[in-house]
C-alpha cells in the first residue's frame, strides 16, 4: 500500500491529481498485459523508459 500513498503524495505535490484515474486505468490495463504475456523483457531497439 506504501506505493499508492507515495504516488498520491507525488501527484498532489506535482498538482497532477487529474492523472490519478488515468493511472488507475493504465495500471489495470498494464496488469492485464502482464497476465497475458507472462514474462517481461525490455525491448531491444530503444526505449525511453
Amino acid at each position, binding site marked *: 500500500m*506504501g*506505493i499508492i500513498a*507515495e*504516488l498520491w503524495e*507525488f501527484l498532489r505535490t*506535482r498538482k*497532477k491529481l487529474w*492523472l490519478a484515474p*488515468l*493511472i488507475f486505468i*493504465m*495500471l489495470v*490495463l*498494464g*496488469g492485464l*498485459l*502482464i497476465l497475458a*504475456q507472462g514474462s*517481461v523483457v*525490455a*525491448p531491444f*531497439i*530503444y*526505449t*525511453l*523508459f
Partner: protein
Amino acid sequence: MYILGISAYYHDSAACLIRDGDIVAAAQEERFTRKKHDDRFPINAVQYCMKEAGIEPTELEAVVFYEKPFMKFERLLETYLAFAPRGFRSFSTAMPIWIKDKLFQKSVLTNQLKELFGDDVDWRSKLLFSEHHLSHAASAFYPSPFQKAAVLTLDAVGEWTTTSLALGDGKDLKVHKEIHFPHSLGLLYSAFTYYTGFRVNSGEYKVMGLAPYGEPKYVDLIKDNLIDIKEDGSFQLDLSYFDYCTGLRMTNKKFDKLFGGPARQPESELTQREMDLAASVQKVTEEIVIKLAKGIAKDTGARNLCMAGGVALNCVANGILLREGVFDNIWIQPAAGDAGGALGAALGAYHILHGKERKLSQSRDAMRGSYLGPEFSSEEIETALTEAKAKFTKVSDQEVTDLTAAALADGKAVGWMQGRMEFGPRALGGRSIIADPRSPAMQKQLNLKVKYRESFRPFAPSVLRDRVAEWFEHDGDSPYMLLVADVAEEKRRKMTDEEGKLFGIAKLNVPRSEVPAITHVDYSARVQTVHADTNPRYHDLIDKFNELTGCPILVNTSFNVRGEPIICSPEDAFHCFMGTELDVLVVGNFILRKEDQDESLKQNYEDKYELD
C-alpha cells in the same frame, strides 16, 4: 559526512562516494561485471567505493539516486495519453516493466541496500532522489574550477528535461531554463545513429567519428523539416518524422522518405550516404550548441561555462564552442553521460540539500584527472598474473618508463595499466592501449588487429601539456579528451591533387601529418593533455618517448576490444592482451611480452563480446 550517489536501471550504472564534498571514489558497474553498459544495481561499484573510503555502512549520511522514477512515469503516461491510440505497442511493452519493477524503484533500491549492507540502518529513510538534469548540472558545476558559472546540460531525456540551463555560484545551483521532452537534441542525434545503422545510446560517437568522411549535404533538409532552431538555440522537433514517442524505433517511414531510403542495416557496408548523413547531423548539432551557448552568455553574462549530459561528450562541438570564444573558460565533466549522474546526485545532496559550503579546488579541478577507480598493489598484480599463468618480469619504476618507451618507438602496440581506473567513458592513461602516432599504418592495425572494430574509427593523441600548442591548434588544458582541435599547420602533410579528390573511407589511407595515426581525415584530433600532477607515470613515459623520437605524443585508445568494457583488473588486462595482437603488456611494474607467453593461453577474443 559521507554520501553515496547511485545511477542505475537505464544504462551505465555507477556509484560514487564523497566525503565532506570531496570525491573519494567513483566507478561504473560494467567494469566489474564485464557487461558493456550494464544497467543493474551497481553492487560491485558500491562495494568498491566503500572499500576505498574504508567506512562502515552506518557512516553513510545518505544514498542518493540520480533521477526520479515517479516523474519519469508521469512523462510516460502523459506522452501515451497525448498520442493515444497510437503508441499502444510501446505502451504494452513499457507498462508491464513499470508495473512489475520500475514503479517500485524505492523498494527495489532499499532492498538492494539491505541485501548489501544488512538492515542495521533504515535505508528507506536514507534514500534520496535527485532530478536527472540537476544531477548532470551538479556533476558539471561542483567539481569545476569556477566559483561562478553557467551550466548547460544536454542529453536524450531524463524525467521531462532534455536540455537545461542552470546558474552556479558557490554552493548554490539553480535551474533557470529547460527544454522538455519530446524535443531533444540528444534524441535527434540518436535518431541519426539509429538511421545510419549504429546502436542507440552507444554508437553516437561512431556517428561523430564518421562525420569528417562525409559532406553535410542534408543540413538544409534537416533544418527545413526535422527541427526548428531559434536564435537563442532553443529548438522544436517535428515529431511526425520520429517514432520514439509511440513506437520502439527512433525514426519512421516519413523519415525514410525524406532521406530517400530505409535505415542502414547494422554491420552492413557503410556508404557515402551514411557519411553525409553523419556530417549533416553533426553540423546541425554544432549549430545548436553554439547558439545555445551564445544565448546563455547573453542571458546570464557568465564568462565560464560548465557542461554535462551525453551530448557534452560530442568533443567536436565542444572544440568549436571553445574556438568561437563565446565563453572565456569551458569545463566539461569527463563522466558526462548517465554514469556521472551518480557523482552529481551525491554532490547535489551535499551542497544543495545539506547547504554545505563548496571548497573550490586549488588544482585544475576536483576530479583528480578522473582517476577515481580501483588500483592494484604490486602483490595483487603479481598474484593475479601468476594465477593466470602469465610470464612476466618485474622491473623498477625507471625501467617501466624506459622499456615501454623503447617498445613504443620500435612500433609495438602496448597495453598500459597503471594506477587508478578512470571514471567516465575515456581511457586517459590508466587503462589504455598506446602506440607510436608517427606510423602511417597504426590506425588501421590497431582498429583491425587489436580493437577488432571498424577501420574508419579515429584514435586520439595523448600529448604533454607543455607541448600541445606546438603540435595542435590549441593551447589550453584538455585532460579529459573532450575537445577536438586541428593538428598544427606546420605538422600537416599537404595532400596531392589526386589524394584530395578521394572520397569517404579512401581518405583514410592518405597520411595527413607527421602523426598520421591520430590525425583524422579533416586534420582534427581529439586531444588529451597529459599533466605530471595527475598522472606522473604516463607523463614520464611520453617524455621518454619524446626523448627517443622527438615526438611528445602517443596514440591513446581504451584498453578493450569492440563491445568489451574497458579493463579494470590485471586479469582483465592479461585476457585482453592474450586475445588480441597487442605486443607488450605493462601492468604496474610488471612487463609481459607476447612472444614469452604460453601459446595455449591465447583465446579467440574477437567474437567474445556482443558488438556495440
